[in-house]
């Protein structure tokens, strides 16, 4: 079977070449590096981001009426707000009059948003409350039609808030599909729901955004890129030995979603103890584990606690349940630069001691000052520089293609992303501008 579809339909042009070539028999899965270097960001916005569910934020960020956070989501400035009636809204942060951002604080509590430019005033459900100097409005001016824009679809799955600009997209649970099972293994760790911990890691990488998708679900790079982290574990009695029958899988979950999962070799706050955490922590971690067994039985408890999972939700959300839980989203600023924002997700009501262990564990690996993320950033930027050798036209992601059940050291989970991205970028679409290579 050969799929070499991209960009060929309906053009009749030989100058348009495929982005992805998959040939199962030949064991070939190639991605054209032009996908990382050419100016296709606006096409990706139209064809991929605007046709997907995109993560906006977490319910815990806006616990009270009139709470809001303002951030850039997939390139658009938006306001995530709990309106005065208690409903969760996503408002596009651009005045209906002439375009200025009506909210200029990153978070707060406000019933009204007043545009600084001409003082148009909006309710926090988006309705235009009033304009300044109303005597001068034209006869046809209809205030009711001049509210802030909102994405046509906003839905929530277990406190994770998503938006879509595709009016006809499947509902969020259907879209998440098999990714829900993995998400549930993460979210079930909390009895009272999850919350984001105070403190945000917002940074940039001078590399194409799709490289971070590959990297976030790449088990193969860990032993070489992150040797310094494993040395740190070994020096500090932090290694966990899962034994010889180590479980390890890379799975295409459908719809572009994917997971890499396996027995963890490092300590986890829920719930895998290693001496590095300290003797005093052991009874607490044991208690967390025992409670999981009570709630879910031995099998599921063991799966939740002793395995890690790197979950990718198409197109730009990573929820990695590893040394701790990170929620990470990102978007292209330019082909060769992305903006990243990540948070620590943690069970509400977690004890002070466990929360401290969780944050220590998080920072042992994750974040722009951790013992691993900076090296990932370094190598993604190195790939991007290497791509200037455009004679080296393809990246090889064939690893594990011959395995009946590809493991986490293979690249099946990355292929899952590329298959979906390729379908969306290659489909004939009148709305999207032509593919440029």
């Amino acid at each position, binding site marked *: 079977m050969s799929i070499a579809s991209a960009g060929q339909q309906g053009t009749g042009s030989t100058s348009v070449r495929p982005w992805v070539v998959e040939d199962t028999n030949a064991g070939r899965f190639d991605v054209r590096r032009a996908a990382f270097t050419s100016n296709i960001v606006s096409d990706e916005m139209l064809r991929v981001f605007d046709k997907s569910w995109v993560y906006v934020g977490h319910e815990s960020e806006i616990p009270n009426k009139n709470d809001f956070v303002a951030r850039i989501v997939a390139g658009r400035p938006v306001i995530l707000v709990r309106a005065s009636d208690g409903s969760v809204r996503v408002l596009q942060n651009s005045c209906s009059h002439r375009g200025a951002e009506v909210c200029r604080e990153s978070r707060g509590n406000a019933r009204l948003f007043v545009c600084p430019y001409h003082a148009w005033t909006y309710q926090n459900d988006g309705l235009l409350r009033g304009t300044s100097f109303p005597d001068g409005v034209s006869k046809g001016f209809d205030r009711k039609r001049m509210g802030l824009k909102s994405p046509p679809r906003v839905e929530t799955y277990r406190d994770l808030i998503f938006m879509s600009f595709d009016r006809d997209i499947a509902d969020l649970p259907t879209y998440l599909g098999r990714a829900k099972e993995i998400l549930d293994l993460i979210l079930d760790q909390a009895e009272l729901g999850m919350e984001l911990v105070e*403190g945000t890691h917002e940074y940039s990488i001078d590399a194409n955004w799709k490289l971070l998708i590959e990297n976030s679900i790449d088990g193969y790079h860990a032993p070489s890129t992150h040797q310094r982290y494993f040395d740190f574990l070994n020096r500090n009695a932090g290694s966990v030995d899962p034994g010889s029958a180590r479980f390890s899988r890379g799975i295409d979950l459908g719809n572009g979603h994917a997971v890499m999962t396996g027995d963890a070799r490092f300590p986890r706050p829920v719930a895998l103890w290693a001496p590095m955490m300290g003797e005093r922590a052991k009874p607490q971690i044991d208690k967390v584990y025992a409670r999981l067994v009570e709630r879910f039985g031995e099998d599921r408890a063991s799966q939740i606690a002793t395995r890690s999972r790197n979950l990718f939700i198409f197109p730009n959300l990573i929820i990695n349940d590893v040394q701790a839980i990170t929620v990470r989203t990102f978007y292209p600023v330019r082909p060769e630069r992305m903006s990243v924002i990540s948070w620590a997700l943690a069970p509400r009501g977690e004890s002070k001691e466990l929360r401290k262990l969780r944050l220590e564990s998080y920072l042992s690996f994750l974040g722009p000052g951790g013992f691993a993320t900076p090296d990932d950033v370094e190598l993604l930027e190195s790939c991007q520089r290497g791509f200037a050798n455009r004679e080296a036209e393809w990246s090889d992601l064939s690893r594990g293609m011959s395995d009946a059940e590809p493991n986490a050291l293979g690249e099946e989970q990355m292929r899952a992303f590329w298959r979906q991205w390729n379908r969306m970028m290659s489909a004939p679409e009148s709305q999207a501008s032509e593919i440029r290579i």
Partner: protein
Amino acid sequence: MTTNTLRLEVEDFLYREALLLDSWRLDEWLTLFTPDATYGVPAPDAPEGSFEESLFVIADDLPRLTDRVLQLMGNEAWAERPRSRTRRMITNVMIERETDDGIEVWSNFALFRSRLDKISVFFGRNNYLLARAEGGFSIRRRRAVLDLESLQSVGKISFIL
């Protein structure tokens, strides 16, 4: 001793510390810390957070800081191979208070970093808790509070700030 003399002594200590860091003499730099010392870089949107309740960018106790130095001086910290060239300006040194815990000091920093033809600028305030030690001071707490709104302009913090 007048406050002025103390400040001069502290300034001298901070200048020497800056030189050790800019010279990558990190093993020597580590000897400045007390066994209960902490080194922290708060997230830019939670500058007054605590290690226990907030996500920091860096929240090291001495064992973890010691390991960080070991990693940076080794061969596998790719983010610092080749190493960053840095130069830090330390100014506006103020003695906040002197208690039984030690001497609390604030200073301003502007740190210029050059690496792979990119230049990043880190700036903010350092908060120290210093203890008197033989021949000078030792560091009980060192917290680098960035004035950056986010790490968008610098990307990562792979060396000692």
